């Protein structure tokens, strides 16, 4: 079965859609994207205490609700649709998965409850100056210091790194990669917000200067953990991208019905109808890929995550880019203005198209799975 959503998921979806329409309307997105912090702490606490969203995939023993990536997919799709401004992806998808996949029960005990309650914001510091999203890109060295380790170096493109209470860091111990945790306020830890194309999603440079760090999981097993986390993360990102792509398509269709030129709505012209029919094909195809990805991330039988993930990332990135691009084109001159929100989706799409690796890189990964 390709379809993973049930009636319960659709009911979760409609309550989330109503919530975001109320607490994250366009006016709020625009207000928050102009701030450095980038999110509303009250709303962040509310989605934890009332909706339990941060604890969705956190096991019950750690204060979460122990749901799967299918339920998380519904949440992310709706967040993507609303361009919800919050450190949710960094905390729940990236940091939480690192904790869960590392198998480090002590670290899980220490952090997961705080994440589930909304008290802890997490981030993943991985990419360096090379801009590579793979094992070879990790060059920063961790040096042993008794029971502890010390980190020195710079990590780039760290989602929500400037507001993180917990930073998971990938660094070299000898020739292999290990993961570490660093708490906010640790000596030698500095963060600097970078100006980004997509203002709804904050990115920081995180610098370590002889910063004390604790090993997460087993030394040398960092890449095994991280590669699984990245496969999960691209599937989660796909759900956001599908939500955003559908929102962009909906916007384009609505505008084509109300914009009158040559005595008729522009949506009556086949030039636009055929363009948006093609967009719909890509969005529906991306949605199917997302379903299969969520099934694989949730361990459903038959879907192998490491093979499915690159396909899902490439397809959903391309589909969101197309949908958000054509939305601007349909809006004509208005689409090129700051006032119309078409650019917000476009910038999210462009930015997420290269985040975690671009489509050609993921297709090359899939080529390996096809025996090429």
């Amino acid at each position, binding site marked *: *079965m*390709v*379809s993973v959503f049930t009636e319960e998921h659709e009911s979760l979806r409609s309550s989330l859609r109503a919530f975001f329409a109320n607490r994250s309307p366009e006016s709020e997105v625009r207000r928050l994207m102009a701030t450095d912090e980038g999110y509303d702490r009250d709303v962040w606490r509310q989605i934890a205490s009332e909706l339990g969203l941060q604890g969705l995939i956190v096991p019950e023993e750690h204060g979460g609700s122990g749901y799967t990536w299918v339920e998380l997919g519904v949440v992310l799709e709706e967040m993507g649709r609303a361009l919800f401004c919050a450190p949710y992806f960094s905390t729940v998808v990236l940091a939480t998965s690192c904790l869960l996949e590392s198998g480090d029960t002590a670290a899980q005990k220490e952090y997961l409850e705080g994440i589930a309650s909304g008290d802890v914001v997490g981030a993943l510091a991985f990419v360096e100056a090379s801009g590579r999203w793979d094992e070879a890109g990790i060059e920063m060295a961790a040096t042993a210091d008794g029971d502890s380790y010390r980190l020195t170096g710079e990590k780039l493109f760290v989602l929500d790194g400037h507001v993180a209470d917990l930073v998971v860091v990938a660094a070299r111990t000898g020739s292999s990669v290990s993961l570490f945790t660093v708490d906010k306020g640790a000596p030698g830890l500095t963060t600097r917000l970078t100006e980004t194309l997509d203002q709804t999603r904050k990115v920081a440079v995180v610098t370590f200067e002889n910063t004390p760090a604790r090993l997460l999981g087993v030394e040398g097993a960092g890449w095994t953990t991280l590669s699984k986390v990245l496969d999960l993360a691209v599937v989660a990102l796909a759900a956001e991208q599908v939500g955003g792509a559908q929102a962009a*398509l909906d916007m384009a*269709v609505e505008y*084509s*019905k109300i914009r009158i030129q040559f005595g*008729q*709505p522009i*949506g*009556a*012209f*086949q030039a*636009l*109808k*055929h363009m*948006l*029919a*093609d967009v*719909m*094909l890509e969005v*529906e*195809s*991306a*949605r*199917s*890929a997302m*379903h*299969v990805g969520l*099934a694989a991330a949730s361990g*459903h*039988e*038959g*879907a*192998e995550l490491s*093979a*499915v993930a690159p*396909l899902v990332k*490439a*397809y959903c990135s391309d589909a969101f880019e197309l949908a958000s691009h054509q939305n601007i084109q349909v809006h004509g001159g208005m689409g090129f203005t700051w006032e119309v929100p078409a650019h917000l989706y476009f910038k999210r799409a462009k930015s997420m198209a290269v985040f975690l690796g671009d489509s*050609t890189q993921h*297709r*090359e990964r*899939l*080529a390996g*799975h*096809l*025996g*090429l």
Partner: protein
Amino acid sequence: MDNDIAPDRLAEQVRDWLAENWRGVDDREWREKVVLAGWAAPTFPENAYGLGLSKSLAQVVGAEFTAVGAPRACQDLGPGVVDGWVRMIGLVVALHGLPALREQFVRDLLVGDADGGLALYSEPNAGSDLAGLQTRAVLDGDHWIVNGQKVWSSGPLDSTWGALLARTDEDVPKHQGISFFIVDLQQPGVEVRPIKQITGDSEFNEVFLTDVRVPVENVVGEINDGWAILQVALGAEREWLGEYLESIGRTEETAGDHRSALAPIADGAADLVRAARRAGRADDSAIRQTIVQLHTWRLVHEWTTERLSSASDSAQSQVAAAALGKLASSRILHSVGRFKAQMLGPEAMLYGPENRTGDDVNREMMNAFTNSVGGGTDQIQRNIISERLLGMPRAHTPDRGVPFRDIRKGTTQRNISG
């Protein structure tokens, strides 16, 4: 027969009947017995050799016949090619035909005396805009006199009957002046010619109709109500086609060439990888990207088809699955065809029986047009998607509401079989 009948009781009746009648020989006597007993088309009305049974009860009948190896039952549900005619044309005649036509034609079809037919719908100037058809039927006493040209009729050259759409009133808008007929093709004035396709093959015909006579009792449905009858036939055709293709798929499955929706991701890419290997280009990164893109299109197409057709049985999602799926197929077929020809190198300049590889690859490459043009072009699919799924406004059409006589038309005839 009563639809309240318990399935067990029905099964018992069928078993008793079979015990008394089935002698293990599928001859004419047997076929007539099955038809007269109503088993050949149990869902057809009782006055058209059916029993008026629901589909699920009819399946009970089919199961009993299958159990003893007796053929010819439930042709109204079957996925075979001949079943297709029963389900498309047999159905509309059974439901809307006049008594004389119903009794003769449905019987002939079910007994097997009329197993080859031609659908006479499209015309040289009425393809995407089928309702703009110009073949005319004029009443002359107790016959309609038909003149015109039809194209893309698949079936034998010596077919005995045709399902014909012809214009019976030019003074009303185009959809309102069309009637549906069953026409005898074994008469002077009917000329069936094979169309030579771009591949050199001939799978379709063009049919010239000159003063062809159709008895008045051969009209199906009301005069000028042919468009509605056609919709019933096309709806049945879509349903049959899906099951027909599935039945072919099942055959392939037993041959080990089928993949379930969540089979390993790599399954189904072998032909593409093989083509690249043969060309020595499996390490070329541009080629690798192309292969993955093509394979991905194939996979998401399968997934979307399964997702939308199983998601709900609403008419909306069925339309979505069909139109989106057809569009997806066009891209896949054309792109795969182009890729394989590229991988062949200069051999792709060759064709014909002495150049097997070039012949196969080029035929596959050209036949992709049967999907992007046939059965509603890609452009028509995009209209359906944008208007019926996205709810975009209908295009301005100058012929809407205008009597057919007054709208702009192309020339009627074009000889394409040479």
